[in-house]
């Protein structure tokens, strides 16, 4: 029963052929208003995509800039901390005039064990002065 029904519902091959022929020869006319509406919607869609992309790009740039700024801040802090640690010649845990004095004595004795505190490639009086300046520096708010 079902087989008979399916057979009846199938489009005959000849008819399919004829319909294909007609479809290939006929041009489908789309009204200009519909065409315009589709085009407008397509444009709006692509504008939205482009906006979203630029928004994502902007956020990415902001995030990158924030990362660079954070790295710079931490880098400077790390550098300052490193300099501070280097200036603690006598390893007392803090920088005071005795560190400058210790370095000055080493330099006077011709020792090569000095620390290049100011990073100019030489260990000399400038390093001693740098340590002394650090020792007497007033901390803000204190």
């Amino acid at each position, binding site marked *: 029963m079902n087989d008979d029904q399916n057979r009846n519902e199938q489009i005959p091959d000849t008819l399919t052929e004829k319909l294909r022929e007609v479809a290939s020869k006929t041009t489908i006319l789309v009204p200009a208003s519909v065409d315009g509406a589709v085009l407008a919607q397509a444009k709006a869609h692509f504008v939205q995509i482009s906006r979203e992309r630029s928004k994502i790009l902007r956020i990415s740039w902001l995030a990158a800039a924030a990362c660079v700024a954070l790295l710079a801040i931490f880098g400077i802090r790390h550098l300052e901390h490193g300099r501070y640690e280097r200036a603690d010649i*006598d390893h007392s845990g803090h920088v*005071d*005039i*005795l560190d*400058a*004095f*210790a370095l*000055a*004595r080493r330099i*006077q004795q011709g020792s090569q064990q000095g620390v290049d505190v100011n990073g100019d490639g030489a260990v000399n009086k400038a390093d001693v*002065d740098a340590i*002394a*300046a650090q*020792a*007497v*520096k*007033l901390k803000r708010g*204190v």
Partner: protein
Amino acid sequence: MKRAWLIFIIFCAVKLCGQELATSFRAVDIFIDSGNQALAAYQLTFRGTNGSVKIVGIEGGEHSAFAEPPYYDPEAMQKDRVIIAAFNTASADQLPSGRTRIATIHIQMQSGQAPAYIAQVSAAAGTDGKRISVKVNLVERTAR
């Protein structure tokens, strides 16, 4: 009547401005007593305690080893607190021992206010760089 009030207000303003500008300058000598040990290095904090002291100058001490002005933060000028420090790598016979003036601090004060300041030594060392115990005292210089 109006003129009298105006004169009175101007008089008060001039009086107030005059009071604000009335300041005096003083010099405070800082002495360190290292006992019988030679003093090779020191660091101390000088601080005004009543809010009326402004540091306006710092000069060295009397002994040739500390005659040069000590190290200090230039930011301390016009403030009431300064850390001063100095050292000398000379041998013990060229360094002071006992009580010696190591620096003088010049201060500006508001007239009519009693001077109030303190000094605290944070480090002092002998010729070998080892910490030594010292005493500090402040003496306001009188006009000579």
